């Protein structure tokens, strides 16, 4: 088998057993990337360039990776253990700082920013033997669900159909993993930004509990919502990746001091005896009609609904008890509340980009500091950060904050209450990952409201802080991947892995499991 088709667990096992070297694994991935990825995203790049390529990367740091791979091989040769990710090639969403590499947030305002330190999640993977291949593309500052807002073009494309988006904001991560450019990628999820692209690209996406993984070194969007997490091709690789990076961190006081279980062992416990809930509130979707200003409610497309019901049936056959009609009454308010809360937090976080200490400064002659701020931000930010700053300023202004911000925060309490009450009755909730499969490039971009509603079945987990996982569930009528999703109570990622693994095994013989976006022969 081609080395790039191996899972992270298999790669680490082979390297530990001296059946392959880290350098061999790395070179196999680099040559595959050269074949399928095309030119990296760049400022001023042509969005239409090499339309049949994936374009997951912003920066491929091959030499840095070679140094690390050689070090892993040297450790093996010396009889030392490089760690559970020995020689595993990984990619990193370019929203994390990696020391001495460009860390751009896919924004012109940070295009020249070389990070002076490494994010904790990345550092833990590297300490466990992972080989970082480079940084992958995303929506600018993670603001989007398609990758199209990246200032680094061409943006990532969906490997299953390169005329479609990979989803976002961790679109480069999902595309890279689906395209066999590395079995694990590190993403972030603020409203669904790991799980949505995972569903669109047919990979596994895990949003851990808020506080399960340190945010140190993550360029912030919504500080109360952001969660780093892995994208992988299998549930077992997701469990492996999380087990290495989870846990308390002296550099992030919001990283909870909750012990990290042995997820790989927990994962094998199956779903027998677990109560799995289905909620009618996750079987309808809401769309915004900009002309009438009204929200229109629809039922889910049949093929999405049926994939969830099929998953429920499989879980039942494996011994889980399915509990129907679990009320999650405030689900439909997830996106409107998110429009307020995330914008306030984004505006606050974006004020640090002012052209003074690092990042882009306008080359225009300016006679005073305020003018330099305005010009640097005007020229450095794309349209999505500007939109978020403006909305954040408005809804948090003293005269409007009770009406908007405080109200949204109270509704967040109600969304959390929905989960608290549900998890009194069930161990897990099963739901669709997304209302549809990946849409065409250009199909939604520009309509910021419609784009946001793609996250409507996922964002509630970010408000509540609870963990969620999207696992591949086959393909739709256009042969595009779709996913099913599980929510679990705080810090119960072990339950997500049990359900995800059981579903994966139960569908292991399905023909769709054999499909690949490329021919490896």
């Amino acid at each position: 088998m081609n080395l790039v088709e191996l899972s992270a667990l298999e790669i680490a096992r082979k390297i530990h057993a001296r059946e392959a070297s880290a350098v061999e694994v790395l070179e196999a991935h680099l040559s595959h990337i050269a074949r399928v990825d095309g030119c990296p995203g760049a400022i001023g790049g042509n969005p239409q360039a090499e339309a049949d390529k994936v374009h997951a990367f912003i920066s491929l740091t091959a030499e840095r990776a070679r140094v690390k791979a050689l070090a892993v091989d040297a450790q093996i040769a010396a009889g030392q253990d490089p760690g559970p990710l020995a020689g595993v090639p990984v990619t990193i969403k370019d929203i994390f700082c990696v020391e001495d590499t460009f860390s751009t947030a896919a924004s012109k305002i940070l295009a020249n920013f070389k990070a002076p330190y490494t994010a904790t999640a990345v550092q833990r993977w590297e300490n466990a033997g992972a080989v970082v291949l480079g940084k992958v593309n995303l929506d600018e500052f993670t603001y989007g669900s398609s990758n199209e807002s990246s200032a680094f073009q061409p943006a990532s494309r969906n490997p299953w159909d390169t005329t479609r988006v990979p989803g976002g904001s961790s679109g480069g991560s999902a595309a890279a993993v689906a395209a066999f450019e590395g079995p694990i990628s590190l993403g972030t999820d603020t409203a669904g930004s790991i799980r949505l692209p995972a569903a669109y690209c047919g990979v596994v996406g895990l949003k851990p509990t808020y506080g399960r993984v340190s945010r140190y070194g993550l360029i912030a969007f919504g500080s109360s919502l952001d969660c780093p997490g892995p994208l992988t091709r299998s549930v077992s690789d997701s469990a492996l990746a999380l087990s290495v990076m989870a846990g308390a961190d002296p550099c992030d006081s919001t990283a909870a001091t909750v012990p990290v279980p042995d997820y790989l062992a927990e994962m094998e416990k199956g779903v027998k005896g677990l109560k799995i809930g289905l909620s009618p509130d996750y079987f309808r979707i809401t769309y915004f009609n900009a002309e009438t200003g009204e929200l229109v409610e629809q039922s889910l497309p049949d093929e999405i609904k049926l994939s969830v019901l099929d998953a429920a049936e499989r879980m039942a056959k494996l011994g889980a008890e399915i509990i129907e009609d679990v009320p999650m009454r405030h689900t439909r308010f997830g996106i409107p509340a998110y429009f307020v809360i995330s914008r306030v937090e984004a505006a606050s976080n974006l004020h640090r980009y002012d052209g003074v200490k690092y990042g882009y400064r306008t080359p225009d002659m300016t006679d005073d500091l305020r003018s330099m701020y305005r010009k640097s931000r005007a020229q450095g930010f794309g349209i999505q950060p500007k939109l978020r700053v403006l909305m954040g300023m408005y809804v948090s202004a003293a005269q409007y904050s009770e009406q908007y911000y405080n109200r949204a925060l109270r509704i967040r309490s109600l969304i959390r209450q929905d989960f608290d009450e549900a998890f009194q009755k069930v161990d897990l909730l099963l739901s669709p990952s997304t209302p549809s499969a990946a849409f065409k490039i250009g199909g939604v971009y520009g309509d910021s409201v419609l784009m946001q509603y793609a996250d409507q079945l996922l964002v509630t987990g970010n408000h509540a802080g609870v963990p969620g996982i999207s696992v591949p569930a086959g393909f739709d009528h256009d042969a595009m991947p779709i996913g099913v999703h599980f929510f679990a109570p705080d810090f119960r990622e072990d339950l997500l892995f049990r359900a995800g693994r059981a579903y994966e095994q139960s569908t292991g013989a399905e023909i769709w499991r054999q499909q690949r976006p490329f021919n490896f022969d």
Partner: protein
Amino acid sequence: MTDEITPELFEHLVELAALELSVEEGEYLRRQLNNQLMAIHELQAIPLDPATPIASHGVPYTPETSAHIREDILKSYPDPAKLLEGAPDVQENYIVVPDIPHQSLK
């Protein structure tokens, strides 16, 4: 339908946000803001008990799950020159900026 964010209010927000916008950008952004506010108004439909607490985060932090406050010890970054490499304009280890506008206090 009256726009909640009028051109005048929008100009004020642009000033507060320390931005400058082209005419096209301004028109697009104001339209998107007003559309988003229409979606946000959905929140008004919920009868809200005033006693409902504000949730600034979802997961509760208890003493058992919260990190101890670390000791307040100064730790120097080992390579200050590396930090300054990222600054747009540096002279003799100072970051240089244009004149800071002065305003007389009344």
